[in-house]
């Protein structure tokens, strides 16, 4: 393919991307750009040219070793739902715009730490960008079948790079506030992520099913190649450890790489998008790896020992079969992977460069005294220049240093360097004691180890076996061999560097943090970072600051950077949020934090602090005082929480009370009804007695027989009165639990016989036939005989009373099973209304029937029966038989262990 043709295609492709970015920037709130899928796909900026080409090279040369870089993230991503959410919250409320801001803010908003993190990032990432440029350049030359020119000015790829740098710097920095979302760029990155996966899958399918005959075919053909088995198994333990360290640094990378921090955290619009990302992104990584192996070994089979660069197999294979279309498609996919990484990384780095290095150390002084428009222009311009120069610097590095390294080795080098930020980064999230001194020492020492064990050997050239430094160690000391430091000889160079650098890094971070406590500001931010969930809604409250400052002075500063309108708007919101009088002119801690936050997006955390402190005179606070203030604010939060809990408790309590009250009211009504009925029931016999007595008293001429009748009436009614009183007292005893029952084993048949005997006269009088089949049996049951006689007496009396007047019949049946003995007493009188079957056991059941009186004795008998049976833990119920009559049955449990 001709150079011109390819360049033309590239231009068209970039114009399309530019258009997408432009289009989505305008629709930054539409659901097309602001959705969890765009977010998830934008995270796939992780898959760079290194993935696109380098994995294949790695798989072809050393088998499965390309995998850990994807396994690490896949393993750690499920924790995003907690950790990433936290980081996003911290970032959002503090207006953090980069990893440098994040780490330096946590350790007391330290300018020097921010600068250090920026430098480490540049060290780690610029070679990585160089690697992308190398990929573009290499593949460009393969597709166009040209050779790279040694003179960079005649090499076409130089101009591609310059164009790219211009595009990135123009488009990557439209906003002065770095915490603004860049929907355009993010959407374009997401589209590119989809394209690179699609293009990679196309070439994968092409190789697997068109060049070869499926996975099996490739496997069969590849398995006869030299070293196939050795390359494709995780051999020894040391190999496993190598894998472990590679997984570890890629786990770190997915959090800390500036481009990942930028897409996953700074560009996160909604926390809930994480929920989609935690499945979609790992799925993306898995899909990307499906065809790596077939392409790699397909290439090995096709090209064998021709000594071609295996990184570029995906281009060489279609080219080998003269498929120009596929070749260009693959090239475009790789180009996409490369430029998305370059653009996002350079934006992130340039922001760090300006906010954490240039502004706080350089022109912060000059920014304070000029107009907001000029300020904005200068900041944006500085970032644009930053992006441009970073890309150009990367190109130079590529041309000077890494022409002959594989993509993977440079990529891993980046990962190891970036991993040096991991201890202080994760410490920031979970450990309040971590201090700035510890973080700085850890990063510097860790980086030094990297420098010695990786950067120096790579700069000299690993492949040059003549290098005495690598072979014999510094000054010829065996223990200082960079790839076998202190005799650790069973790890590969990269895992070895990871091990030593992280060991030194973590140990010094921990040791120094524990030995020297940080200043109050560190402690303050530690609290806000670690306990972010507590402070999410009122983080300004958690900021500890003492001193004197005027709101008007600070407002002037804010206006210089933000302009009058935005400043006033922000102030109004702040005053509303904390209910502050707008005429108040004394700035408190909340206002200081609020003002710093407003500036952070523009000039970074460190500069924001410098600018604000130029007008706000801060008093030193001792560490104990900070701890005390923090404790107080924590207590306030806890008290708040407790208040909420208390009020919930109160709510349930008051509900309970309400229910109890309702119950009491019901009981009260029942009691009233009961009393009402009792008095009524008592008055009836008294009325009869009184009437009879009055007649006897007043009428002296009363005939003897009538006199006898009235006297008999008085006796009957007195007895009735007495029985009633007995029953009321009985019932009261059972209800209040005063009545005890004394259980013993008895013969229920005998008890029934005894009861019947006492009622014999009534039975004979009414000529009732009693049918009791098991009369002579011995059926044992456990009960209080006296009480059960009371029950039986009552039931029999009722049965006698209600059985048919002419052919009265009572039938007694006893049934037994394992659980209980049941006694049924049937009479052939009138059936009871079905709706009354339960109610007859209520005391004064007539009371419920208002003024209709039912002929059921005192109205207490069955209620007492029920109480007695219930105290035996048995049941009692009434049934109406279809053939007429009523059956009342009670049960006595056999296992009765009741204490009552």
């Amino acid at each position, binding site marked *: 393919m001709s150079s011109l043709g390819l360049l033309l295609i590239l231009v068209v492709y970039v114009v399309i991307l530019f258009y997408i970015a432009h289009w989505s920037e305008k629709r930054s709130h539409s659901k097309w750009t602001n959705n969890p899928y765009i977010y998830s796909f934008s995270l796939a900026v992780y898959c760079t040219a290194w993935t696109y080409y380098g994995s294949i090279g790695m798989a072809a040369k050393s088998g499965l070793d390309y995998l850990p870089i994807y396994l690490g993230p896949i393993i750690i991503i499920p924790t995003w739902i907690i950790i990433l959410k936290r980081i996003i919250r911290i970032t959002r409320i503090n207006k953090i715009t980069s990893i440098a801001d994040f780490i330096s803010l946590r350790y007391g908003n330290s300018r020097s730490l921010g600068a250090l993190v920026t430098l480490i990032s540049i060290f780690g990432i610029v070679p990585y960008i160089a690697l992308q440029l190398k990929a573009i350049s290499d593949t460009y030359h393969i597709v166009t079948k040209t050779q790279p020119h040694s003179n960079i000015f005649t090499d076409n790829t130089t101009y591609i790079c310059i164009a790219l740098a211009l595009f990135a710097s123009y488009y990557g920095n439209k906003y002065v506030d770095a915490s603004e979302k860049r929907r355009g760029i993010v959407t374009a990155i997401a589209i590119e992520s989809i394209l690179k996966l699609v293009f990679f899958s196309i070439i994968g399918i092409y190789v697997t099913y068109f060049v070869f005959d499926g996975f099996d075919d490739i496997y069969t053909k590849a398995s006869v190649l030299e070293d196939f088995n050795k390359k494709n198994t995780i051999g020894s333990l040391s190999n496993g450890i190598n894998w472990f360290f590679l997984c570890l640094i890629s786990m770190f990378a997915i959090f800390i790489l500036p481009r990942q921090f930028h897409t996953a955290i700074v560009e996160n619009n909604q926390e809930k998008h994480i929920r989609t990302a935690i499945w979609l992104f790992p799925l993306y990584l898995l899909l990307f790896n499906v065809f790596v192996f077939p392409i790699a070994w397909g290439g090995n089979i096709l090209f064998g020992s021709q000594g071609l660069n295996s990184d570029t197999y995906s281009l060489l294979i279609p080219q080998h079969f003269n498929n120009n279309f596929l070749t260009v498609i693959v090239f475009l996919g790789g180009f996409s992977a490369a430029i998305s990484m370059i653009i996002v990384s350079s934006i992130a780095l340039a922001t760090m460069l300006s906010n954490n290095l240039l502004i706080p150390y350089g022109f912060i002084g000059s920014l304070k005294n000029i107009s907001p428009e000029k300020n904005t222009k200068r900041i944006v311009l500085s970032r644009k220049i930053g992006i441009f120069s970073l890309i150009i610097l990367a190109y130079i590095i590529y041309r000077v240093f890494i022409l002959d390294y594989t993509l993977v080795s440079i990529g891993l080098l980046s990962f190891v360097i970036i991993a040096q930020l991991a201890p202080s980064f994760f410490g920031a999230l979970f450990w309040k004691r971590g201090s700035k001194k510890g973080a700085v020492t850890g990063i510097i020492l860790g980086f030094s180890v990297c420098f010695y064990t990786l950067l120096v050997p790579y700069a000299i050239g690993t492949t040059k076996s003549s290098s005495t430094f690598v072979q014999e160690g510094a000054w010829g000391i065996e223990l200082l061999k960079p790839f076998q430091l202190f005799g650790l000889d069973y790890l590969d160079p990269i895992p070895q560097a990871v091990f030593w650098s992280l060991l030194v890094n973590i140990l010094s971070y921990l040791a120094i943090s524990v030995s020297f406590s940080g200043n109050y500001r560190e402690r303050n931010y530690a609290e806000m970072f670690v306990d972010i969930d507590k402070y999410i809604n009122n983080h300004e409250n958690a900021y500890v600051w003492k001193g004197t400052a005027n709101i008007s002075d600070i407002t002037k500063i804010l206006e210089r950077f933000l302009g009058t309108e935005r400043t006033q708007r922000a102030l109004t919101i702040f005053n509303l949020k904390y209910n502050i009088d707008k005429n108040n002119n004394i700035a408190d801690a909340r206002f200081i934090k609020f003002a710093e936050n407003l500036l952070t997006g523009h000039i970074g955390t460190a500069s924001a602090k410098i600018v604000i402190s130029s007008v706000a005179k801060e008093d030193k606070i001792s560490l104990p005082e900070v701890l005390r203030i923090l404790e107080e604010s924590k207590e306030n939060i806890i008290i708040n929480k407790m208040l909420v809990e208390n009020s919930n408790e109160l709510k349930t309590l008051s509900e309970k009370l309400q229910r109890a009250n309702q119950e009491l009211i019901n009981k009260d009504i029942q009691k009233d009804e009961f009393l009402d009925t009792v008095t009524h029931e008592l008055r*009836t016999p008294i009325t009869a007695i009184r*009437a*009879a007595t009055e007649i006897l008293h007043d009428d002296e001429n009363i005939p003897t027989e009538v006199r006898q009748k009235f006297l008999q009436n008085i006796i009957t009614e007195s007895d009735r009165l007495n029985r009633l009183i007995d029953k009321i007292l009985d019932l009261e005893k059972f209800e209040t639990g005063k009545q005890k029952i004394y259980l013993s084993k008895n013969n229920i048949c005998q008890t029934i016989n005894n009861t019947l005997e006492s009622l014999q006269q009534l039975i004979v009088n009414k000529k009732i036939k009693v049918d009791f089949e098991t009369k002579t049996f011995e059926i044992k049951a456990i009960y209080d005989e006296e009480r059960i006689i009371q029950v039986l007496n009552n039931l029999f009396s009722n049965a006698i009373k209600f059985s048919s007047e002419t052919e009265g019949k009572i039938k007694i049946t006893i049934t037994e099973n394992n659980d209980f003995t049941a006694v049924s007493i049937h009479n052939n009188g009138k059936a009871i209304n079905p709706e009354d079957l339960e109610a007859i056991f209520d005391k004064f059941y007539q009371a419920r029937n208002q003024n209709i009186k039912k002929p059921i004795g005192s109205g207490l008998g069955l209620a007492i029966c029920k109480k007695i049976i219930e105290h035996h833990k048995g049941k009692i119920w009434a049934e109406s038989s279809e053939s007429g009559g009523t059956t009342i049955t009670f049960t006595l449990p056999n296992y009765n262990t009741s204490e009552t």
Partner: protein
Amino acid sequence: MKKILIVDDEPNIVMSLEYTFKKNNFEVFIARDGQEALDTLKHQHPDLIILDVMMPMVDGYSTLEQIKQNPELENCKVIFLSAKNKEQDIEKGLSLGANLYITKPFSIKKLVEQVQNLLN
């Protein structure tokens, strides 16, 4: 001779009332509940009815309601005689059109006086 209907389900109370009113020259009819009373009233038109409230089948209040619907009993006086002695019971009885509401236990002598007053 004035006719009087006694409606109560308590036989011993009825007995005292019956004896006393007969002795005072009343023609006495007896009913043991509201239904029986209404049956009796189909062919008898007493001058006064003594009515209990709590009775089986049909209570005193409903009995009075039905009595009041019968134009033939327009001049018939009604006395409630009940152990229900709460104010609302009394009010209800009077509002239904009873001439008197006497609570149990009561003085027979007084009752006879009140009956005679009503009928004169």
